[in-house]
Structures are given as structure tokens and as C-alpha cells.
């Protein structure tokens, strides 16, 4: 996919760039308002990652410009402002999602993937990973053409893993993704272990290879062997 990253913080820009480029995506960057306006005037993107507070102007203005140009680019707002009004304003102006800083790169990847999937394959909501095929609309999973029964959490977990395939995903990123950031219950994320264990078991029973690997206590990695 072709992405545009509008972010003024250099270190953050580099990390995001590195994370997305590794997957063979084309990722362009704009570090201020004017650079971003120039880019969106010239090109189209599958998804624009947009910071709201930029040198030279407001991110919201870029959203308005996009809307005026009738462009169909997906927009994901990444902002330090955890404000409901900003969120509502952004979504009303045509943004597809809103992610509050700080975030996990895996969460960012999952959100971008979801946006791009919704935008680019109109009507086609299927994710395919080797023998696994997922219909995100109907929430159905087929492994080798056999229906696989997963709970809601296991389903979300699988979609999340596939969006972040070949990447190490941390336990708290998974917990936050599945339960929302409200659940800051404990620093002990062992309770997600049960879900991962069940998912792995169900996938293997359905005839998949063991794609989920535990990585040095930090998290998990989903990759085809």
C-alpha cells in the first residue's frame, strides 16, 4: 500500500517509517503542514497518517482540503490530544480513525490495514493468509475451506496477528487492542495467554501450521514458517 505519514517529530517518523517499509509498503513522509498539502495535491494515497498539531498549520485543515478535493484517501489521525471533541471533529471531517499518542506500532499497523482494506477492496472484505481466509464482514474464518469457530476475542486476535505478520507484537499491545485502553487493570497481562493458547490450539486442530511464536517473554510473532 501507499502511505503518507504527516508527523513533525523526527524520531517518531523514523520508527513508523521503518515499521511500515519493512512490509514492502511505499511510505512517504511530510514533516510540516505545507509539505503535506503539496503531497496531497499531487498524489493519492491508500492511507494518510495525520498528526493534528503541525508546524505551519493545523492537521484539521489538511482534512478539510482533502474533503474539498473529493479525494478518497483513507485518513488515520494520530494525535497527542485525547479529546473527545477533536475525535468527533476529525471523524466528522472524514477521517476514518483516530489513534491517541502514545500508541503501539502494531496497533497503528492494524488500524491502517483495516482502513486500507475497507477503502480499496470495495465489497471484498477477505483477508487471506496461506490456508486461512477471513471474511471480516461476516466474521467467518475458513481454513482449507473448512469453517473455523472462534470467539469474538480470538477472531480479533487472529486479524490483529495477520495485520502484523512477521512482527513481534507485545502482550500489552494485544491487551489494549482486545480490551481497549480502559483496561489498565494490572501490569500483569497473563490473562491474554489463555486466549492465545486457545487460538493456537484451534488453528492447529483445523490443520494450520503453528504460526504463533512466543518471543522472549515480551510478546508473540505470527509468521508462516
Amino acid at each position, binding site marked *: 500500500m501507499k502511505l503518507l505519514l504527516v508527523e513533525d517529530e523526527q*524520531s517518531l517518523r523514523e*520508527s513508523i517509517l521503518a515499521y511500515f517499509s519493512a512490509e514492502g509498503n511505499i511510505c512517504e513522509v511530510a514533516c510540516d503542514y505545507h509539505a503535506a498539502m503539496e503531497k496531497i495535491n499531487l498524489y493519492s494515497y491508500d492511507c494518510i497518517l495525520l498528526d493534528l498539531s503541525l508546524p505551519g498549520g493545523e492537521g484539521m485543515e489538511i482534512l478539510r482540503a482533502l474533503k474539498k478535493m473529493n479525494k478518497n484517501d483513507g485518513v488515520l489521525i494520530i494525535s497527542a*490530544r485525547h479529546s473527545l471533541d477533536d475525535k468527533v471533529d476529525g471523524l466528522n471531517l472524514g477521517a476514518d480513525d483516530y489513534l491517541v499518542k*502514545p500508541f*503501539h*506500532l502494531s496497533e497503528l499497523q492494524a488500524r491502517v490495514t483495516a482502513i486500507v482494506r475497507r477503502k480499496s477492496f470495495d465489497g471484498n472484505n477477505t483477508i487471506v493468509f496461506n490456508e486461512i481466509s477471513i471474511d471480516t464482514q461476516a466474521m467467518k474464518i475458513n481454513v482449507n475451506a473448512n469453517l473455523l469457530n472462534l470467539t469474538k476475542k480470538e477472531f480479533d486476535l487472529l486479524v490483529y496477528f495477520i495485520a502484523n505478520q512477521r512482527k513481534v507484537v507485545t502482550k500489552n*499491545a494485544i491487551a489494549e487492542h482486545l480490551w481497549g485502553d480502559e483496561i489498565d487493570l494490572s*501490569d500483569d497481562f497473563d490473562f491474554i495467554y*489463555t486466549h492465545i493458547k486457545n487460538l493456537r490450539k484451534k488453528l492447529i486442530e483445523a490443520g494450520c501450521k503453528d504460526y504463533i511464536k512466543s518471543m522472549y*517473554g515480551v510478546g508473540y510473532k505470527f509468521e508462516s514458517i
Partner: protein
Amino acid sequence: MKLASQYNRVNLFVSLIVLLLTGVIYYVVIHFILTEKLDRDLSIEEEEIRAYVGTYHKLPLPGDFQDQKVAYRPVKKEDTSGRNFSNCVYLNEKEQEEEPGRSLLTYIMVNKQLFEVTVVKSRLEAEGLVKLIFLITLGIIAFLLLILFLINRFLLNSLWRPFYGILDQMKAFNLADKNEINAEFSKIDEFTELNQAVLSMSQRVKQDYKELKSFTDNASHEMMTPLAVINSKLDTLIQTAGFSDQQGELIEDIYLAVGRLSRLSHSLLLLAKIENNLIKNEELIDLKELLNQKARQFQELLQSNEISISLNLEAKAVSMSKYLADILLNNLMSNAIRHNLKSGHIDVLLSADQLIFSNTGIATALDDTRTFERFNKTASSEGMGLGLAISRQICNLYSFKLSYQYENEKHSFIISF
């Protein structure tokens, strides 16, 4: 005791003493003056008698006229005691009454015979005058006291009104409120000065508070970007292969610390926002449904801690922000789980006027006064100690009352609508 009544008391007391003293002095002085006058009259009478004796060499007739009596008595030289004035009783024969009188006792030689002469005058008129003066003085005292009392009562009250006005405003003064203290108009310099002092103080305090709040806001805000950088760098770091288990643990610890720090910033921002009343979007929230939803949401956590939950919910809707309702219930639910025992129990009770979360936990009651303070937490708690402060702030915003109770070994948090 009020300043006015204290002042009144002293004022009236002193006035009374001074007026009484004045009355006494008046009485004594006037009495003295009148007696002097009487004595002079008596001396004139004596001289007239002497002049008569000098001319005619006989005594005038003993007379009884104009409240005055003259009497003679022959005495031997040895019995005389000298000329003197004295008070005595005067018999008014017209009215057959005894009246106070003043007499002059003197001696006169007529044809070698010594006579004792007694001249008596009625003092009635003089006494009457003294009495009248005394009564007038008393009347003035009473009148003056009454006037003083009325002045104190009504004038002072109205004079002090601006003071009480500003006092009431100071009592009602609340930093978090938007309303300012208004100047009470007064012609009195002291009160005008007080007004100005209070006004400028409240403005200064508000300004400081505002700066402090915006500092918290900005500080929390500015923390987000570096936190985002740390988080993303960590995410990038773990993609590079070849970590040992020990390194993995270290990285996990860093993740946890970053996670806590970002939650802390979010919580502080949220608190500031609630305090500034920046969260609007009120809507009717079906609490029963929301609680059921929370129970589902927390299901895995309850299971992993082997905590059982029982919901006893009546239909109840409140008008509040959905966002804050979520946070409030999340906080209370998280608390009930976090501070629970292994295989403990949570009761959630919703009625028309109350929502109660009660859970099993440590066997001692929490300190009621400090429970809702910021950053107040037990040593074993993994939280930040902001959850209950936020919950209370949310409840305050919608005029609910959040309280804590410990009963039958259960900790209860009660929201009264």
C-alpha cells in the same frame, strides 16, 4: 459575639455611667447654688432686722410672710452658740404642711437685752427646681440611650451590610467555579479597601490556579510525544532478532513503565478536563445496559482472578457524557477487581437512587477521608491512585454523591443520584 453588639454593649454601658455621673454632679452643684441663694436671702433679712433695730431701738414684729418666718427669743449671753445656717422643717400654715426649710440663727442686742433671732425660709421651691432638673436629666439619659440603641441597631447594620455581602461571597468562593467575586458598593473607605483587597486576591488566586492547571495540562500533553517516541522505538527494537530471555524481561519492564506513564498523563489530562468542565455531550445513559456491558467486558479479568460477580440491576437512566460514564464504571469495576481477594466476590446493585459496587478485600476499612484524594493508594496497589479521584470528580460534575463504606467485611462504593 458580633463586633456591633460588642461595641453596643460597651457604648451603652459607658454612656449610662457618664450620664449618671453628670446627673449626680448636676444635682450637687445646683443644690449648692440654690442653698447659697437662700442663705443670701436670709442674710438680707437679718440686715433688715438689724437696720430696723438701729433706727427704732426695738424689734420688728415677728412676721410670717412670703414663705418666711421670723421669731425672737430673749437669751442670756452664756447660752449663745454663734451665728449659723441650718436645714430645718418649715411649717406652712396656709397649707398645713411641713416643708423643708432653711434657717438662720443670729443674735441681736436691743436695749441691752440679747435676743436670739431665727429666720426660716421654705426650701420647697428650690427642692422642686432640683427635682425637676434631676428628672430632666434622667429623661435625657433614657432618651439618649434609646437613640444610641436605635442608631447602633439600624445605622450600624446598614453600614456593615457591604462587609457581610463580601463575606458571603468569600464563603461561596470556589476556585473551580467560573463566577468571580463582585464588588459591593460602599461609601466607607475601609470597606472599599477590603473590597479591593478581596477582589485582587481572588483574581490573583484564580490566575495562579489557571496557570497551574494549564501547566498540568501542557506538561501532560508535552509528555505524550516523547512517550510515543519511546514506545515506537521499543516496538522497533523488539523487531530486531536475537534477544535473550533476560533482555526480553528488561524490555517488558520498560514497556510497563512507559504504559503507566502514558496512562498517568491521560488521567491528569482527563482530570483537568473534567475540572474545567470541558466535557459536554450529555445524553441519556441506560446504566443497566452499560453495567451489563461492563460485566461482559471484564469477564476475562474476572475469570482469571476467579472472582464471581452478581448483578442486581433495576432499570435506571442518567443524563451524562457517555465517555465519562464509561470511565466511571470502568474505574469502579477495575477497583473492585484489583482490590479483591483471590476467589472473591463482587456485588453490583443498581436501584432508582443508588449504584453500589461492593467487593470482598482486605479485612480493614480504608481511611474514609483520604480514599478519594489524588495519588492516595495502598502500597500493594498497582494503580496510580487517580481512579477514585477521577470517579469523584465525575460524580461531582453531575451532582452525584460518591461515598465509601465498610460493612460485613465488604468494601462498598456508593453513588447516590
